[in-house]
């Protein structure tokens, strides 16, 4: 019986009983960084610390935390580094603005090229490819 109890408790740490909660935990495992490993999420790492971080995710969810509260829990302990989702603050404004800026700059370049290419009396070219 004691072996069975140990197994059950080991599993309790490894997975949550409710599939919906466990799905949230698995999604969070993907975006929380293992603090000891190199560029790995805790979902991937086989290290002991990742295992305890996974257990902590489940503990927080079981305690009723929302996803954001779980993220905040880890950020408070390990800093922004622990989250693969970059924070949104003055340091990262440029990061989040960059895709929009690139899209706009590229669109400008395409527009220029289109205008330059516009000729009069264009006939379709029939042929291969």
């Amino acid at each position: 019986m004691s072996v069975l109890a140990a197994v059950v408790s080991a599993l309790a740490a490894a997975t949550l009983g409710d599939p919906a909660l466990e799905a949230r935990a698995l999604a969070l495992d993907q975006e929380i960084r293992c603090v000891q490993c190199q560029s790995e999420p805790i979902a991937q790492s086989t290290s002991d610390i990742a295992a305890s971080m996974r257990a902590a995710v489940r503990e927080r969810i079981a305690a009723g935390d929302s996803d954001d509260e779980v993220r905040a829990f880890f950020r408070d302990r390990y800093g922004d580094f622990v989250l693969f989702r970059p924070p949104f603050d003055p340091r990262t404004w440029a990061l989040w603005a960059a895709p929009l800026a690139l899209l706009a700059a590229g669109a400008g370049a395409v527009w220029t090229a289109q205008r330059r290419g516009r000729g009069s009396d264009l006939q379709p070219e029939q042929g291969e490819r």
Partner: protein
Amino acid sequence: MITEIGAFAAALALALSVLQGALGIALPRSDANSAAMRVAALAGAMLVAIAFAALVVAFVRSDFSLAVVVGHSHTDKPLMYKIAGAWGNHEGSMLLWCLVSAVFAAALAWRRGAQDEGLWRRAVGVQGLVTAGALIYTLFLSNPFARLDPAPMQGSGLNPLLQDPALAAHPPMLYLGYVGLSVPFSLALAALIEGRADQNWAKALRPWTLAAWTCLTLGIGLGSYWAYYELGWGGWWFWDPVENASFMPWLAACALVHSAIVTERRGSFAGWTILLAIIGFGLALLGTFLVRSGVLTSVHAFAVDPRRGIAVLVLLALALGAGFGLYGWRARTLGRASGFAAVSRESMLLWNNYGLAVAAGIVLIGTLYPMLVEAFGGGLISVGPPFFNATVAPLLAALFLVLPFGPMLTWRVGDLAAAARALWPALAAAVVTLTATLIASHGRAAPALGLAIGVWLVAGGLVYLRVRLRRGEGGPLRKLALLPLAVWSMSAAHIGAGVLTIGAVGETGFRSERAAALTPGESIDFAGRRVTLLDIGAVEGPNYSATRADFRVERGGEIRTVSAERRFYPTAAAPTTEVGILSDLDGDLYLALGEPAERGSAAWIVRLYYNPLVQFIFYGVLLMALGGALSLTALLRRRSEP
């Protein structure tokens, strides 16, 4: 002795590649100089080959007087991995880089084809300087022939994770791709030095670009496949900086493959094609820098030496400085654009380049951003999958939405309405997929949309094939046989992109996983299968010992067995996993063996993953590479015709 020959050969090759550069760029143009340049290129390539062979021999013979052999080999290692060990380390892989560059220089020198002589000799000269730069870096900052005295009796072995066939082939493939991009770079610089780019120049550029893109596709695919079955958590892409380092040149090469078509066919976009060729090689060098410098904390950063990182940065600055400098000076003299309408093949290819270039830019910024923040004292942040999935994925989805229209439109002016009419079956297939997935997944819009886009690409490629078949003459078989190789290659690559999309979205959106403690004989129901742990025991491998678990998997009356291992290499600190994978058309059952559930208990933790459609990812990569290879064949065949 053999090692000294290798080191000497490499030094001599450096002198010859500098000479090759001088003959192509600095010295006056004459038949004698061109002939000398050819001989220098060929002799240089042979010498680097000798140097590389000497290194391979040292690995095969476990010559522990060489520092790299000590660090990366072991007498117990199987022969194949002793050989692969020659490039499974920083120094050896740099020598491989030099070898590929020198061989490409020789190929460029000896296959002039219809190229203008002035442009050709400049290109061979620049390629000589690229080889010289790589050799200087290798010989002075990462010398594979460095000795160790006294020589130890045993090596410290290869990382067991890397002892794998896919990973033995992964670096050479990536390097063929990276260095392959140096040839378009050389051709681009040649065009800028001469101040012109003709259609034969674009014709010469295309096979190199295609070859580089195909090798990058295969190299990245191999790395991803390896990560999938070796790392033991069912993932295949993580937007890791090292993955991004290979993805950025791939995006640039993919854009270049397309823009070079326009430059060759219509003479347009010559300036942009040149700029892309420079950027592509710059990104390949940046990839090398990111991986080799140790600025990234990642398993790939096996060279943690700041001098090396700085040296690669200097080479990168030289290449980009020369490239952009010449571009700024000469870009205006390059050919004029020929006209095209907003709805035309040219315009579609322009949008293709827009999507791919912006994607490469986003990946670049996302990859470098954490270093920038840290450099400016902003502390440590991570930019990972949530950022890239929110930015690059929708951009690629938008690109894929318009992709099937591209091949359907004619050059100069296209007929959008006719293309849309022809594509309606593809649209219907996509809408059916979207609706069915939305219903089956209880309204999960993002993965449903992703799957629909994948189906749209596949069906769009098939529609294009059908349109081209109908245009032919004679019976159906004759039509099939007469279809140009270029049509097959384009369809294969585009359908491959669709198949890859279906796999990527299916796996990411619908994967499930579970952990369970199982004792032998115990079963668990998972993803429509009943998985039973049959037996667990110790096995001995050639240079490791392992715990092996055998499973029986029942699915709808069909019974199969599969095993998973946990391996302990005496040369490594941590155990590695060998997962058990059962592939079906709908997806993979993926079993990884963990640790004993409790000390002394018979139960073991088993992690079960169901990865739907995941094999489509790798089939898609293969189809794309097949498309590249077919297109390359078509181009080379065309080139050999008079």
